[in-house]
């Protein structure tokens, strides 16, 4: 079942400004983790803002759980939990008070809300600090509470907007594990990040976004195939004029798919970089070339992004 269906979404903040989101279409299916991967400013938060009805699209539309984001905002909001990138908490209130407040804003109350507050505090390992003011919490604890609030009411779709920004590795691990566990219980998740590793680890499908455009979308395997499932062996020579010579010399080695040279930098796409490396070094020695640096890269989303945009994800 398709839980989110975005069709040609466009968002322009000013009439004559650029499109922050430019003709984006995708689906999120029931029970999947769908990640939007892209650098800061790519348009990820704007997409979440439109899908959560905070912003009205300039063009296009979307449905969430079957409800139109333009005309059925309240129904959409009841179907989602949003975990914003900012720590949207009241620092002067305690963790329990925050959960109660946000729970009541979702329309929860009574014993059910009380039970859920206890459950969420326990899940986020915050029970001991339930009565402490949030202003006394560490960054990681605040992030966990921020996440817990988004889960109140157990909505079918959770939108997580860069939930691991600026936290310690332990809290990051905690959140990633919890997202996976949550998904295993059947909750669908829209996850935005600029961390390639998170998208790789969590996602069933990934959309890569840059400058407001969804440049590709698919499973990790599908995306890797875009650059070919080859490893990349990159060598830097001391002799800048030797790159082309070495490229020609290694043309016959086993498993080589592509060889290119740029001044003193030689890039080889091979089946197994470690197997090819001794032979490449031998050829270089025969030609009297000295190696300054060797780099082996396995295909990943970084290489996909590099392949598709010509620049690194964190540029």
């Amino acid at each position: 079942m398709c839980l989110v269906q975005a069709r040609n979404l466009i968002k322009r903040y000013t009439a004559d400004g650029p499109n922050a989101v430019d003709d984006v279409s995708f689906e999120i299916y029931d029970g999947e983790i769908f990640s939007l991967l892209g650098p800061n400013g790519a348009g990820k938060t704007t997409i979440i803002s439109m899908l959560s009805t905070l912003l009205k699209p300039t063009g296009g539309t979307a449905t969430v759980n079957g409800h139109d984001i333009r005309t059925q905002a309240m129904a959409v909001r009841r179907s989602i939990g949003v975990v914003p990138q900012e720590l949207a908490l009241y620092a002067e209130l305690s963790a329990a008070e925050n959960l109660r407040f946000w729970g009541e804003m979702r329309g929860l109350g009574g014993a059910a809300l009380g039970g859920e507050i206890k459950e969420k505090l326990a899940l986020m390992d915050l029970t001991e600090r339930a009565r402490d003011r949030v202003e006394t919490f560490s960054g990681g604890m605040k992030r966990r509470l921020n996440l817990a609030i988004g889960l109140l009411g157990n909505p079918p779709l959770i939108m997580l907007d860069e939930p691991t920004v600026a936290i310690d590795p332990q809290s990051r691990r905690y959140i990633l594990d919890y997202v996976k566990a949550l998904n295993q219980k059947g909750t669908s998740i829209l996850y935005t990040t600029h961390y390639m590793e998170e998208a790789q680890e969590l996602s069933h499908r990934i959309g890569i976004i840059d400058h407001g455009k969804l440049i590709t979308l698919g499973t990790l395997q599908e995306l890797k195939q875009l650059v070919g499932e080859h490893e990349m062996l990159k060598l830097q020579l001391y002799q800048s004029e030797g790159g082309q010579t070495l490229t020609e010399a290694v043309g016959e080695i086993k498993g080589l798919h592509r060889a290119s040279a740029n001044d003193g930098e030689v890039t080889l796409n091979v089946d197994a970089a470690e197997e090819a490396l001794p032979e490449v070094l031998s050829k270089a020695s025969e030609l009297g070339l000295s190696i300054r640096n060797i780099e082996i890269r396995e295909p990943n989303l970084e290489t996909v992004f590099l392949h598709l945009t010509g620049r690194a994800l964190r540029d």
Partner: protein
Amino acid sequence: MRKLATLALKEVKLAFRDVGALVTMLVTPLVLTLAIGAAFGTGGGGLSDVPVLLLIQDAGPMSQIVVEVFTSAELADLLAPEIVSDEAAARSRVERDEVAALVIVPPGFSQRIAPELARIEETLGIDLLDLGPAQTAPFPEELWPEISRLFLETVEMDEDPLVVEVYASPNWRISAGVIRGILTQVLAQINTTTQGTATIIEALLTRGSRDGENQDIDADPFLLAAEMGLDDTTATQLPVRVDIVSPSGRSFRWLDYSATSMAVLFLMFAVTSGGRTLLAERQAGTLPRLLVSPTPALTILTGKMGGVFVTGLMQVFVLWGATALLGAYWGPPPGVMAAIVALVLCATGVGALISAWAQNAGQASAIGTAVTLIASAVSGTFFPRMNLPEWVQTVSLVTPNAWGIEMFSALQSGQGLAEILPFLGGALGLTIIYYVAAAAGFRRQFR
């Protein structure tokens, strides 16, 4: 409705958990109330041509001294006195705010302020107060027994003080205080003179029985007074008391005035700050999070402003209680409660208006502070409104401060809920205008 209550309660919690906000809301106005009450306890200056009516119902010489002082060249710049004879008409002019006050010197004033001297003068037909250099000889010896008898009879009289009434408009508070101050000074001076004279007479009576001793001193009362070390401290108890009476029966006190005006001032600080938090929440991300919860924007806005309103109510009620413990009088409780509710509603309208149209929290904070201070200055927080130019008084009616001060002044001068209904209406009308203007800004923000 439950969400509204939740939102409002959250606002109240946040306000009362902020130590800085508590200091602004409660501690500072209390300290300022006490400081101003102490500094201006007897009235303030900066006045000129204060219109004052003098109704002299006493035929004796002492009341003429009062007239002479009020019409003296020294006070010509400060006072614009007018002698009147029709008490009802004079009171009516005060009630119409045409003059600051009516001073009523009652019949028997001279007799009461120096009863022994008046009785001696009246009975024996002499002027005991003519102690200047012109009188070079002591009183005739044959009068001594009679002076002695009359003096001793009179000084034993023990009556309640006579009241000189200063019938003052509540809108001319400082002026009334100044008039009372002048009158008190005059009476104190008269008292010093008459008490001194009485003491000299007493001494003369005692010495009259002795032969030829200190003839020079006996002949010159000034020398005698100097020998006896008479000075102003002789007159510590006035036989006449000065009361300021407003048309509705209560007199002005700076403590009362500053308690309410400071409460209004710091209420404005609190509510404009409360309104600012809407923009702060937008920047912090909690407002967007609220807006993606299944809660309508109007509920969020109403709940938030409701919280600011409840916080303001609590602030003013606490200040009312605290200043009452310090002795400040706000007025009859039903009227005060109605005035507080109307005032806080109106003030939250200003907070809403600023937060609706400001671009960010910093801008809202700066605008809120400027609006609060300007509104306070023009509305009579620091000076009574009637002492401000007419056009300033008119302009100030666009501020909650002006309506609040009008309401509390009326209540403090003895008026009740019924009398302040027009002010309540004015404040509520202004509230509607503020919220309508704010609604347009909020529509722009939440579009």
